[in-house]
């Protein structure tokens, strides 16, 4: 039986929810409201005055080929980051789950990258692949491959994807490992007796049983790729070369704070808000149906 506590007055319940309401108001509703309000204006080049333009900012953005390109870049980037963060994590978790000896040590080591902040991870990867002093770039040069992510768009995209996914693998690994360990041993044993060998068991029994975790991680990783990768992109490529790594959230920043077009920047963040909201709703509505809880 569910136990419910009911309050008689209204003062105490109000006090109890006040901190959450306060935080949401200050850090979400107020800035989001500001963004929506600002998206309706165009400031002058010096930021001294602004002119009301209605939906003009949105109209301009939808016709802007750079903005449309940024959408495609974001789609490619977030797909790649999600895949690159989840597939290796699942593989490592499956391997760690099979370990008997010193499993704890491997687990701890595999969790460490998560402790590295995205911007720091970005700098780390930048140094390794730096075209002049990077270790990896130098070795690639020895092998006859001329690594230059400053000029090559695909290499730039590859590098920011790897740098963004790297720390994320640890996070996903933790969840996958916990989920794997929650799969009842006897089900795996039953499948083994039924004749399924390891990978067959994995794809027909284990993976379906992991689907709630996989679904959760999918949502969380896509949201991560959309927003939290800003630091990585800012430190490694700053959106370049030729805007090849300018994802939507980076364009919000560069148009607003570098280009000083606050109206467009605000309009972009409103669109971003809608896109992510829509994506999450779609995921819950369609993918969740295929998830076996």
């Amino acid at each position, binding site marked *: 039986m569910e136990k419910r506590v009911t309050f008689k007055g209204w003062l105490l319940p109000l006090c109890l929810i006040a901190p959450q309401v306060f935080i949401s108001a200050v850090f979400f509703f107020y800035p989001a409201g500001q963004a929506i309000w600002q998206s309706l204006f165009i400031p002058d080049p010096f930021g001294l005055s602004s002119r009301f333009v209605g939906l003009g900012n949105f109209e301009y953005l939808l016709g802007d080929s750079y903005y449309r390109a940024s959408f495609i870049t974001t789609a490619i980037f977030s797909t790649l980051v999600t895949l690159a963060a989840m597939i290796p994590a699942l593989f490592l978790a499956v391997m760690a789950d099979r370990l008997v000896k010193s499993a704890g040590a491997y687990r701890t080591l595999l969790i460490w990258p998560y402790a590295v902040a995205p911007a720091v991870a970005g700098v780390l990867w930048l140094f390794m692949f730096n075209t002049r002093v990077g270790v990896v770039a130098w070795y690639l040069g020895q092998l006859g491959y001329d690594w230059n992510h400053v000029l090559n768009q695909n290499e730039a995209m590859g590098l920011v994807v790897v740098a963004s996914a790297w720390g994320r693998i640890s996070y996903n690994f933790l969840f996958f490992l916990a989920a794997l360990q929650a799969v009842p041993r006897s089900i795996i044993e039953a*499948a083994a007796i039924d004749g399924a060998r390891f990978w067959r068991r994995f794809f027909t029994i284990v993976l379906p049983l992991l689907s709630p975790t996989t679904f959760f991680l999918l949502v969380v990783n896509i949201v991560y790729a959309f927003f939290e990768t800003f630091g990585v992109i800012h430190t490694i490529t700053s959106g370049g070369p030729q805007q090849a790594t300018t994802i939507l959230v980076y364009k919000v920043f560069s148009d607003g704070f570098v280009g000083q077009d606050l109206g467009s920047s605000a309009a972009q963040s409103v669109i971003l808000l809608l896109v992510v909201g829509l994506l999450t709703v779609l995921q819950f509505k369609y993918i969740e149906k295929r998830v076996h809880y």
Partner: protein
Amino acid sequence: MATVTLDNITKRFGRDEVIKGVSLDVADGEFIVIVGPSGCGKSTLLRMVAGLETITSGDLRIGGVRANDREPMDRDIAMVFQNYALYPHMSVAQNMGYGLKIAGLPRAEIAAKVADAARLLQLTELLDRKPRQLSGGQRQRVAMGRAIVRAPSVFLFDEPLSNLDAKLRVQMRLEIRELQAKLGITALYVTHDQVEAMTMADRMIVMNAGRAEQIGTPLDVYERPATLFAAQFIGSPSMNVVNAEGRDGALHLGEAALPNSTGHAGPVKLGLRPEHLRPDPEGPITMQVQLAEPLGANTLLHGRLATGDSFTASLPGVHTAGQGSGALRLSVAAEHMHLFDAHSGARLG
């Protein structure tokens, strides 16, 4: 269908030897029950036959072929688990057909075999359901169905009835036995329930602390328990065991003297089954009754002997003698007296 041979099988986890050399020959189509208290190694033994645990030493032969190093799937066995281990994301039909699908059988053939097994187990109506929509008894049947569709050489059961309620357990006990007899498939069945062991087994292994205390037919074990442990584990209520001493050609329990058929002298353990005691005004055993439990068909009388040993007698019908007041005199036939070595617990005579 196959024979199963265990030849001095042992299992070690680190330094702990949990199975200390078990040997057994199972005939084709025989139903063997492995019974013992929790922690005696009975499940480990079964899992070694299944291939889910490695065998530390000794030989396992299934159908005459050494199977120690074979993978579970290559041993031609099927196992029913205590928690059924059904695949939660598959329907009943998919659960039962999974093994056949992996074996690469054509779809139509799988469907036919699953339908046959479902008919046998009265699961036809439930084939499209998911395991979570089934009751405990139905899940048990699906687990059975999954085992029989593959027509294995050996069935392995790991306490399959312990999650069911008492009534269903009795019913499934009969069904499993009938099914096994009908299919004629060799079966090894692990349980901690001595009633299951008595009713189902062709032969049973009584296990204790990694050793087979006795291997024999249920009546064998009941009538001639090889050790004190087997004597006390099999039979309900369990056997009375009292200290006695062989002296002057008789067995002395304190004041009482009983005939000594073995002629063994010195301290021994005397085992007397409660149901073998008879009220007898001239009987040598005097029991102070403290509590009577009328069960209808018989009455259990609990009390103590003059020596202080606690003692139980099961007398037929409703029995009021000695209730509350105290003394009840009992006698026992010589063939129902079991003597065990006071130290090793091995049967004497």
